[in-house]
């Protein structure tokens, strides 16, 4: 059992093309890893920023998410309160400590209770800031880190994502490039968790009919924040 690793690797090696030596394979792998080959990328999402926003909204709504737009972080509390009221939800949110939200003056809205940290069982509403967005499929990309607990994305029934428009891209590939640009050598700095979220939780396990909200959030709302390249953490 101790040498299972060697046994498996030896069997694999014995099964590979005998004309390609191990040294050859290593070179070929290194080349591939350091010069990623060209990938087929759908034309659908090769658009200007304004059209990307429209495509993102359309795709997200197709999968039963809702969207709204705000032009500055100052508008966030009212938008959130309005959303909670619309669905008769308690006026209490759990949010991450993302620097993007530092400037939000929650205190001006005393009816809204704001808590920070990871999600607990009784948290019904969460607010998290997206690392990026993918218009191609209306997908939000969220990364874990000191300011971004992953549980906020899954445990509460209602999830609101703040999506800075400056971080909206056409394709997933562009979000990876952005992650690399921001985090440096991702072989080392890659976050513990990267979540792609496309609509609320759903299941087709009961007679193939789609039902929303089985284990994750029942509702997903994305607030597109028209920002000027503010930093998110």
């Amino acid at each position: 059992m101790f040498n299972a690793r060697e046994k498996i690797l030896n069997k694999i090696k014995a099964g590979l093309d005998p004309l390609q030596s191990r040294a050859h394979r290593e070179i070929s792998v290194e080349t591939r890893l350091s010069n990623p080959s060209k990938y087929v990328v759908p034309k659908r999402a090769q658009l200007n920023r304004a059209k990307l926003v429209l495509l993102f909204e359309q795709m997200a709504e197709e999968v039963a998410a809702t969207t709204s737009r705000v032009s500055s972080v100052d508008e966030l509390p009212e938008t959130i309160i309005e959303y909670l009221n619309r669905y008769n939800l308690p006026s209490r949110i759990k949010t991450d400590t993302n620097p993007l939200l530092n400037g939000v003056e929650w205190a001006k809205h005393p009816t809204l209770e704001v808590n920070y940290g990871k999600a607990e069982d009784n948290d019904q509403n969460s607010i998290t800031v997206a690392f990026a967005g993918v218009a191609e499929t209306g997908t939000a990309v969220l990364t874990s880190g000191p300011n971004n607990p992953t549980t906020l994305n899954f445990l509460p029934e209602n999830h609101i994502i703040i999506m800075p428009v400056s971080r909206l891209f056409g394709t997933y590939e562009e979000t990876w490039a952005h992650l690399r640009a921001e985090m440096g050598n991702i072989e080392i700095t890659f976050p513990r968790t990267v979540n792609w979220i496309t609509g609320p939780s759903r299941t087709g396990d009961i007679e193939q009919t789609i039902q929303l909200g089985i284990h994750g959030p029942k509702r997903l709302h994305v607030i597109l924040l028209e920002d000027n390249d503010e930093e998110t953490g």
Partner: protein
Amino acid sequence: MQVTSSSFKENTRDALSNPTLQNSLKRLHTGFVSSRARAAARMPEFELLRDQARDIKDHVLAHLDVYLEKFELQCQAHGGHVHWCRDENHAKDVVLEICRKANAKTVTKGKSMIGEEIAINDHLEANGIEPIETDLGEYIIQLRNEPPSHIIAPATHVSKEQVADAFRLTHSDLDPARNLDEPDNILAEARAMLRNRYLEADVGITGANFLVAETGTSIIVTNEGNGDLTQTLPKVHIVLASIEKVVPTLLDATALLRVLARSATGQEMSSYTTFSTGPKRETDVDGPSEYHVILLDNGRSNLLNSEFKEMLRCIRCGACLNHCPVYGAIGGHAYGWVYPGPMGSVLSPGLIGLQNTKHLPQASTLCGKCEEVCPVRIPLPHLLRSWRFLIHEQGLADRKFNWGFTIWAHLAKRPKLYKHVVGWLIRILALGALNKGRYKYLPGLKAWTQTRDFPAPQGKTFMQQWRENEDV
């Protein structure tokens, strides 16, 4: 998992005469098949994406040793543990050991076909640890104590009423008169019942759709969010993966993800795609403090050096099941092991031996639909034929089957004799039908005439028509 593939014929008979199953199978066909067609039509690059997906997997398989070692290195660099497991028993022991070290009482589970392959639930249970399936479909079949019937929709054979029955039986402390008629009610009950199980579990076990060598990452794709609660809340996360799941980079995984959901459910993208790398970091607010990856071989390295190598490209989307007329008629359980449908009929003999599974490669009309929809272009009909060849070579075929083909081969090699025998046979059958044009019963063809009539031959033979056309 226990193999019942050798009683395939009996399984099939049961499946065909099960009205609940037949109803569910109809739904499956209309649901997944039309959604996939819509998704493919909406993506003009879809065929190119499939070529690309095939090429990525071929590249990985040709460099599998290097990529697995790279994955191991990167996973460890992020604080993860990698366990190489040769077979089912080895993997079960390793998982149990990790659970014991964590003093685990309960274990939540995301959907994992490797989990089914090594029957991990039985093993944990036998050792006093309670496994709780959290994917709704898996939860349902766990309550009903049966195996999955589809690789992505495990409870597709179960009706709404049967789910309600299972819930009433298991959730016995709830009001017996409660309404479980609508899927909404069932969903709410499942959500409520599983909530605490997530929070109190000591270990979470998930599968992996892909492993990324470049970063040492495991990827899961779900719609329910159960996999994420399973891998984020407990203090230990165990990933069950087989060796062919590794891909070079995040970009390769991305390319494969573009064809996965579209081929599987016809979604543009599943609700949740999650990339997990190692345990929680020092500064992270949540996440597991231990992260283990099981790399299971269980016969796959043998396939690498065989004519069935291309089967290792499979990304388990289930499209070949959804489009298969045989799967559509008998469902998944009849196949008798973890993997049903065309992909299972090719993979199962490779993993658990041809002796047990010799009926499976025969259970195909070779219509080619599976290959037509496979996102990584596995030539499934060709591989099924290769197994048939081996069945014949190893003398595993039924005597009646061999006898029939021996007679046919004898005739086919002698054109004159063939013409005479077939010519007479046609005349007799045409006369015997007595103007009805069909037979309700024919000796020796009972299996055929049981479910449909045999049409009586009419008009001229192919050779006669050929000769007449030649004159023209």
